[in-house]
């Protein structure tokens, strides 16, 4: 049963799923827990890996379908083909040319995988209002996408620097959303959410830095994790919306493509959410909070 505040007006609840690759699957556990307890979402915001889950949830897929789609699209296979043209252009620009962006992995397989669930789908079809965050490569600013092609938005939002090339949408070149706002609670605040469920994750550091690409990924993680803290702190203190952090605990390391651990990740997300359910209900029932 839907919870309604005693003033008759239901508070607007947002779910914000931050960057975190496979760990973002914890949002499915959160969603299960909310559904079981009759708590509806008024908007979903996603960034980077979180954008895939936000989009699938907003499009109305059930948890089992979301899990299946993730296992199909987010596999090591999508990183199997090196982008030698880009790599050579990056290191020998005078010989091979450099077109202004760089990637070590060819994106054909990633694009094909993302076209599966999102190919022709548009924001306007979403059953829950959806917002996806990416970063404008040219000026570094956050870009919030709320209309148009979901595929384009997700592809831009997951464009991990040095791994995949940025993605052009109109006159913008979009890079991974985690480069500007790894846990975009501010988007939910701007859209009028009163209760914000914030599921954020530290970007993992490689177990061993044994290649240039891992070195680049490690450095990106350092940037991103510090940005996550700075942004999260600012938004907690600068706004009066109630931000409820839901932080699943993982006793084992979850790698970038550990999709076999998704059931465990979902379970931890569900567990972390269940702890907060009584409080979320009290917040929904409270007046003038």
């Amino acid at each position, binding site marked *: 049963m839907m919870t309604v505040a005693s003033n008759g007006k239901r508070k607007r609840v947002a779910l914000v799923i931050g960057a975190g690759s496979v760990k973002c699957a914890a949002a499915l556990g959160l969603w299960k827990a909310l559904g079981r307890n009759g708590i509806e979402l008024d908007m979903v915001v996603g960034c980077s890996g979180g954008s895939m889950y936000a989009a699938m949830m907003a499009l109305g897929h059930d948890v089992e379908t979301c899990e299946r789609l993730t296992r199909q699209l987010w596999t090591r296979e999508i990183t199997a083909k090196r982008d030698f043209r880009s790599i050579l252009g990056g290191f020998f620009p005078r010989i091979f040319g450099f077109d202004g962006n760089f990637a070590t992995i060819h994106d054909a397989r990633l694009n094909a995988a993302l076209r599966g669930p999102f190919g022709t789908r548009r924001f306007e079809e979403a059953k829950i209002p959806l917002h996806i965050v990416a970063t404008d490569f040219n000026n570094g600013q956050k870009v919030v996408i709320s209309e148009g092609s979901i595929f384009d938005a997700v592809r831009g939002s997951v464009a991990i620097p040095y791994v995949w090339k940025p993605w052009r949408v109109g006159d913008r070149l979009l890079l991974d959303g985690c480069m500007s706002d790894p846990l975009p609670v501010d988007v939910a605040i701007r859209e009028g959410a009163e209760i914000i469920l914030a599921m954020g994750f530290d970007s993992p550091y490689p177990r061993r830095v044994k290649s240039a690409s891992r070195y680049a990924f490690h450095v990106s993680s350092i940037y991103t994790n510090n940005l996550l803290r700075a942004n999260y702190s600012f938004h907690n203190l600068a706004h009066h919306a109630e931000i409820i952090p839901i932080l699943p605990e993982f006793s084992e390391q979850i790698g970038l493509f550990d999709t076999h651990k998704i059931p465990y990740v979902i379970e931890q997300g569900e567990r972390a959410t269940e702890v907060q359910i009584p*409080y979320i209900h009290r917040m929904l029932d409270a007046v003038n909070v």
Partner: protein
Amino acid sequence: MPMEVTAELLGHTTVVRVVGSVDGLTADTLTGALQSHVDEGRIRLVCDLSGVEYTSSAGLRALLGTLKAARQQGGDFRLAAVQPGVHRILELSGFTSILKLYGDVDTAVASFAE
């Protein structure tokens, strides 16, 4: 879980013990309780968080407001016995770099003598 706030004076330091959740429903009560100590000149404050398992954004604002008020008057606001769940939230929001945290109340109280 409802919140309870109690206080006791240990030497020149006021120890405020909080039990329950510090969130949007309880933060105003905590802010009021902590601010009353600052207003009365009790600006060496230790907040015993051993009984707090959760804090939301409203709780963080309450803690920061007290920290600013105490430091503006030449005192300090320090945390003791922060539980793992709360510590993760403090860490995520950068509070562990601006607030002093201690493992237990005695150590926190003793830190004011250093």
